[in-house]
């Protein structure tokens, strides 16, 4: 089955470096791919979130590649890994262990393909880890997951607990509605990047993407 999934991913995607982390080559649905302009019902994949490099994911990966100390010799968990770029960046920056997590099997297959393209090996898990203690991890990556109201609530409550347990929480987000003003009071901006043109075209209305670190509650 993994083989079929991988074959389908290869068939419908193209190799891309046109993003904030050009040192990583990633299989994505790009403007050259027919699916880019497809309607939802024409896509062979249901919600192919992994096929696009979300601005929040780009920001966290960029930040990791520029700030090796954050992940070096530490255990990194990439929640909602999508195409796997955050995990790949952490592995490249010599994290001790990296686990890419996504409940979508297609995302994990894409992560394996992309890890392979970039010469790293990544463990993956399809378990829903949200709400768990994640005891073995020091750094948690959240690349662009504040796109849904209800989910944002669950996610943020959990992240606060992980933060209280001493973990570093990195959030990449271009300013989606789930990262509300109230929640923003608990995060500190580490970096801001201008989104590449292609990424802006995938995210109508957004031009910048940011990395935030969860801080102590006020």
């Amino acid at each position: 089955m993994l083989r079929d999934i991988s074959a389908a991913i290869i068939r419908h995607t193209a190799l891309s470096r046109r993003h904030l982390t050009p040192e990583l080559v990633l299989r994505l649905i790009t403007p050259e791919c027919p699916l880019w302009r497809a309607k939802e019902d024409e896509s062979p994949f249901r919600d192919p979130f992994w096929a696009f490099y979300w601005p929040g994911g780009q920001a966290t990966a960029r930040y990791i590649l520029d700030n090796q100390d954050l992940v070096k010799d530490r255990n990194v968990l990439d929640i909602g890994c999508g195409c796997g770029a955050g995990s790949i960046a952490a592995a490249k920056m010599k994290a001790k262990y990296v686990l890419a997590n996504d409940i979508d099997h297609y995302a994990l297959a894409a992560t394996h393909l992309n890890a392979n393209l970039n010469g790293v090996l990544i463990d993956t898990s399809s378990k829903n880890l949200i709400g768990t203690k994640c005891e073995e991890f020091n750094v948690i990556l959240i690349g662009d997951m504040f796109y849904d109201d209800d989910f944002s609530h669950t996610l943020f409550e959990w992240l606060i607990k992980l933060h209280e347990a001493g973990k570093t929480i990195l959030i990449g987000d271009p300013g989606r509605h789930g990262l509300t003003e109230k929640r923003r009071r608990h995060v500190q901006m580490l970096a801001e990047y201008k989104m590449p043109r292609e990424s802006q075209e995938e995210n109508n209305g957004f031009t910048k993407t940011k990395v935030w670190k969860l801080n102590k509650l006020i």
Partner: protein
Amino acid sequence: MSRVLVGVKRVIDYAVKIRVKPDKSGVVTDGVKHSMNPFDEIAVEEAVRMKEKKLASEVIAVSCGPSQAQETLRTALAMGADRAIHVEVAGAEYDTLQPIHVAKILAKLSQDEKADLVIVGKQAIDDDSNQTAQMTAALLDWPQGTFASKIEKTDGALTITREIDGGLEVIKTKIPAVLSADLRLNEPRYATLPNIMKAKKKPLKKVSAKDLGVDLAPRIKVVSVEDPPVRQAGSIIPDVDTLVAKLKEGGHV
């Protein structure tokens, strides 16, 4: 930074051949392809460009209609609107929904949402009323810039180029204001798959006209809807002399 409210209407697609109902009460809508009113697409595009240029902080799309209006709102969200409000109007009330009602709804929502700018299409391609922007401005007592083909923001004011008979007119208005988009304002973007996917998760709130305190009793009665007269066939004339003779005969020269 301002908040922009954009009105979007679900209409019969521009490419569909319109058929009048046999009882002349309206046109056939069942089983017919619908899409966003093209002038409203231009309005959405302009609002999203304002957001991208940091001239606007948030874009809210509003549509009045049955549940299918949500499809139109999703398109607006895919084009880049941040959130949507569906004002549910269905059945008989929808059949008699008129610009005055939509204007009252937009005016109320503009106040509730603290909007600084309302942008709508200059008219909908189904009823061609061309009234909503004007009425909304009147109800809010805000300045209006209708048939806009260019909108520029200059220190708290707007410079609007309007398409008028025989040329262009440039006006300046203060904000808040109501604008209507003409054809040449911009070329709306296509909603691509990555944007459609992300739009599914954007907030969409449903309210009723009653929630907003708007009375939907019709103010206009449609007496009859009829097909335009069938055009008479033309004829080919062999030479100029015959043409001149024919024109004289018809009393045209």
